[in-house]
């Protein structure tokens, strides 16, 4: 009986330990997700690889891509016009 009680105590302890691990694990995971989300937001606000307006050169692929889109837009009657406020205007 004493041995059984001890086993039961062990079982309860093991159960509590398991629940605690799941609970703490959940909290850690949630915080990690939140940190990643915040990092993404922060990254979105920090421009990466911004082109230098003065020295930029277009690759052939980029030229072709742009021309293709312009043609598609023109078919819909839309003529793109250069806009203000980009790359530290």
């Amino acid at each position, binding site marked *: 009986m004493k041995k059984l009680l001890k086993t039961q105590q062990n079982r309860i302890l093991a159960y509590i330990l398991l629940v605690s691990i799941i609970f703490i694990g959940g909290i850690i995971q949630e915080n990690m997700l939140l940190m990643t989300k915040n990092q993404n937001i922060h990254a*979105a*606000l920090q*421009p*990466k*690889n*911004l*082109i230098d307006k003065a020295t*930029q050169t*277009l690759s052939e692929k*980029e*030229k072709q*891509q*742009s021309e293709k*889109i*312009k043609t598609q*837009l023109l078919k*819909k*009657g*839309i*003529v*793109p*016009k*250069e*806009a*203000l*406020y*980009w*790359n*530290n*205007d």
Partner: protein
Amino acid sequence: MSTIQCQLCPRYCTLTIGQTGDCRVRINLDNKLHTLVYGNPCAIHVDPIEKKPLYHFLPQSAAFSIATAGCNLHCKYCQNWQISQSSPQDTHNYDLPPQKVVDEALKAHCKSIAYTYSDPTIFYEYTTDTAKIAKQVGIKNILVTAAYINQQPLLDIAPHIDAANVDLKGMSDQFYNDMSEASLQPVLDALITMKKQNIWIEVTNLVVPTWNDSDHDFSLLAKWIVKNLGASTPLHFSRFWPRHQLKNLPPTPVETLIRAREIAMNAGLHYVYLGNIPDRQGNNTYCPHDKEVLIRREGFKILENNLINGKCKHCQTPIAGVWQ
């Protein structure tokens, strides 16, 4: 791959070749930012200025109103979502360059041009160029906007703008985030900047059941306006109608709007109006001094105007606004 960054609004979209911003109208082509809506409005109307709503700015005048496709906010309750949540490729657009807008406004005897329906922030270049020409011929310029714009572009356009109706949607970041995928602070900053730049401001707040209809919400909003824009800033509480992604909610109860008006007036605001409901009291302008009716309205029509040179004809109290 190299990117460019649009710095017009607080979203700061970074775009590779061919990508459009969150607004759907600003695109990276040739590694330069381009607008797709310059001179291409998808909505053109002549509206009574009271429809903007502007109740203290050239009453009973006509406003030549234009809008393009796209918007930098994505409000669940948007009343004009058919154009604001569309790309310019998907709307029927007119060919109306800035000079032509002004010519048409003159032809229609409009005293002002309103940049409205979607949000003029996203057709910024079109608005600026049109406003400059309009100003030269004595036509006033009005922004009807959510004011989700960065400070520098706002400061640059401000000298050409005479009035603005700003949609202050709520007083918490959580509300802006959940309802519009945006944030509150840039809007508050823009309102303060507009005030400093001497733009006549009226504020609209769409009251949505269960979202922003508590006494605390109304009180916070009114107190912020009193403190930062002044007690004479007109505030319009507007009734919500189930639209777009919030069709599950009922229209705002009239009692809620009446309560909102009482709370805002108790907070110190002089002119609080109720929109989208047939409530006479909430539609009229009263003198803050002797409480007499100054402008009696029915819908967008003015039935009685007791203002003389911008003053109450009974007690001569000056009434804030642009009356001529």
